[in-house]
């Protein structure tokens, strides 16, 4: 068990290092000189050189990369070119917003998709199943930002039940915090749930054909309970993989939804940094998102060991 976990930690570290190299390369390859942008077109060459030296952009790429990675290892994500604020300080208050949004959305998506997908599998030849599948088809075609706009029009503008945008930190006012997260969470979760329904459906259609499901029925479980009791864990093996993959697309979706709802998360930070060519902030934010995705995949890998006893090392036979 420990060996397997250590092996996966190793893969995790190598992926992280590889990702940092790619991110750095892409950002360095971008045209445009930050010093030039900051000082404007006809700037004094001496002032430009001085600014480059101050920002460290005159150093060779390898040195800059080494410095960046070494800094991150110690929790220092560099300093914003424009505001001179440490990137870590920019990230810190925003990480929570994005993580809440992503976590709630994925949780809601699973809560919607699991019963709907199971229904679609169980009643695949009946109208209930066809309805569930069609709902999923329609849901997949709706972009998150459009869903967000419609939700705002209905629930914020017309009905005035929920705030249209903005964010209140949890510590300031838990109720307002929750109310501000409802619409963005629903907007983001809808598409993901629709995608997930299809996977849940096919995973459970497989379960229905399994011998152990038939055994469960033969000892007296009704179909629903047989599916929950003996199907869920077996289906979870393939579903955990899908949810892990979806989480990365939810992170991307969050960038858009955050800007629709004016949430001060990582997405809006990234968008403004791109607009201002603040490379350090871009690098730091993207690196943090990559870290989040890798951590999720790492946890998915570990969850297999928990879910499937056959993967655990030990005496067999």
């Amino acid at each position, binding site marked *: 068990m420990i060996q397997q976990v250590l092996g996966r930690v190793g893969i995790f570290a190598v992926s992280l290092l590889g990702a940092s190299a790619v991110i750095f390369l892409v950002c360095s390859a971008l045209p445009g000189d930050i010093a030039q942008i900051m000082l404007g077109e006809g700037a004094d060459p001496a002032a430009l050189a001085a600014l480059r030296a101050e920002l460290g952009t005159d150093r060779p790429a390898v040195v800059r990369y080494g410095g960046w990675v070494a800094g991150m290892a110690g929790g220092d994500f560099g300093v914003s070119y424009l505001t001179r604020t440490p990137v870590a300080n920019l990230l810190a208050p925003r990480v929570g917003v994005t993580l809440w949004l992503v976590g709630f959305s994925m949780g809601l998506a699973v809560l919607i998709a699991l019963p709907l997908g199971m229904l679609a599998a169980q009643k695949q030849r009946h109208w209930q199943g066809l309805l569930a599948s069609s709902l999923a088809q329609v849901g997949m075609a709706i972009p998150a930002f459009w869903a967000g706009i419609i939700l705002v029009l209905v629930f914020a503008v017309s009905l005035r039940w929920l705030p249209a945008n903005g964010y209140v930190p949890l510590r300031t006012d838990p109720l307002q915090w929750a109310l501000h997260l409802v619409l963005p969470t629903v907007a983001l979760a809808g598409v993901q749930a629709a995608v997930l329904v299809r996977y849940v459906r096919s995973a459970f259609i497989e379960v229905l054909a399994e011998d*152990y499901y038939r*055994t469960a029925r033969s000892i007296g479980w*009704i179909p629903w309970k047989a599916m929950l009791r003996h199907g869920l864990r077996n289906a979870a093996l393939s579903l955990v993989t899908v949810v892990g993959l979806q989480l990365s697309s939810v992170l991307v979706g969050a960038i858009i939804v955050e800007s629709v709802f004016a949430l001060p998360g990582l997405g809006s930070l990234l968008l403004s940094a791109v607009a201002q060519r603040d490379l350090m902030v871009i690098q730091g934010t993207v690196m943090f998102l990559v870290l989040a995705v890798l951590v999720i995949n790492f946890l998915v890998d570990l969850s297999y060991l928990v879910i499937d006893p056959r993967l655990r090392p030990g005496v067999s036979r």
Partner: protein
Amino acid sequence: MLQVRDLEVSFGRRRVPALRGISFDLATGQRLGLIGESGSGKSVTALALLGLLPENAHTGGSIRLNDHELLGRPERDLAPLRGNAMSMVFQEPMTALDPTMPVGRQVAEVLRLHAGAEAGPARSRVLAVLAEVGVPDPVRVADSYPHQLSGGQRQRALIAMALINRPDLVICDEPTTALDVTVQARVLAVLDQVLAAKGAACLFISHDLAVVSQVCSEVMVMLEGRIVERGPIARLFVAPEHPYTRGLVATARLDLVEPGARLPVVEDFYDRATGAAVPQ
């Protein structure tokens, strides 16, 4: 105890027939073999009795268990009977157990589902019934996951599940086909013992006359969805009436074949196209 009358099963919109009106009775504690080749309708019979046919199946006729009609009853009436009044031992011990749950908990489930037993007493009953079916180390087996056990141990666990609630009827669908020959003999002996101990009636499905003869004294021969012959096994071996049965008996008695001679096949005795006997 069990009366089956004109049981018909067909599948799909085109109503492809699987059972063409079979009738038989089974008395309390009686053991009846059901023999036939793949596709003859043996497993469909078993699933029809339990009410576990796939959704696209159409049924007709009557199945009465302890004077209650089962055919056409809704799921909520049938589920309480399964695992309690009637149970089933399936063919594939390798896949018939949930791979993610310890075997003991799967056996205990049958108890808790019907008797509402608490976890503590359930466990001691589980260990007792595992010992009864000849599991050498019940505690270890109960705490093992299916993949940690051999085929014979898994099949014993499935037999334990089928018998723990003392059902009136146990349907065994080729319970030893997936096991190797030595294990097969031991599992059959155990099955024979526990069926006798619990006084359960048994419908024993197999394609192998020799296997059936170890558990049952009477056998029905099934062909293309019909029962073509029923009788005591001893009589069937000596004087099979239907030409198909004659073929089955010949293929089961390989000890009678001269060394070097061609092995007999059913078609030497029975002409499938015409349904008539082949002149010997």
